[in-house]
């Protein structure tokens, strides 16, 4: 399951979706809004997405992960809009029979999302703002 959403991410619902009698391992990665960047205090993050392409690029990543590991179920949920400190910005969940594949697939999915999926975050500081990664 892949989703881009303006609503808070429901971790319990994701867990229920991933559970099955064959799933001996379920791995989650949660990306959470931190209160600082290199010690500069962050007030909030503002996420923006090119929706149709963000979904299709996340689907490509999930498909590639399924080719590399025996994944029973996966879920990828990314927030957009304004997020406050402590909110979950992204959830990756992978269910497999054994733990090694779940760890590896989960890491592959989040690392690749950060490289290819057209989603952008702006850090809003108490004294200014900046699009992450945009400048040399």
């Amino acid at each position: 399951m892949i989703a881009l959403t303006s609503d808070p991410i429901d971790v319990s619902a994701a867990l229920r979706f991933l559970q099955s009698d064959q799933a001996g391992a379920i791995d989650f990665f949660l990306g959470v809004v931190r209160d600082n960047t290199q010690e500069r205090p962050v007030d909030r993050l503002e996420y923006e997405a090119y929706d149709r392409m963000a979904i299709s690029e996340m689907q490509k990543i999930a498909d590639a992960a399924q080719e590399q590991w025996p994944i029973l179920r996966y879920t990828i949920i990314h927030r957009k809009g304004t997020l406050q400190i402590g909110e979950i910005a992204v959830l990756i969940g992978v269910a497999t029979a054994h733990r090694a594949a779940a760890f590896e697939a989960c890491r592959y999915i989040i690392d690749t999302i950060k490289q290819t999926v057209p989603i952008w975050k702006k850090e809003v500081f108490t004294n200014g703002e900046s699009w992450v990664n945009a400048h040399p």
Partner: protein
Amino acid sequence: MNSTISVLLFGITRDLTGQSAVSLPLADGTSVSDLLSQMHQAYPALAGIRSLLIAVNGEYAEADQLLAQHDEVALIPPVSGG
């Protein structure tokens, strides 16, 4: 025959231009790299961005890909999801 093509803008490129889409003239045989040059000419502030890619119809495009009037074109600044 000259036509125009619309380019979707996101993140820092939307902030720099103040618009979520811009319209540019499209000559026959315009490639992705031609369009990027046109964008840089029209909006010199784009030069301050680390990298800019173009997506055509929701897929990352190669520099030599040719554009057609009804393509959905988007300028993709460095992504920062997660």
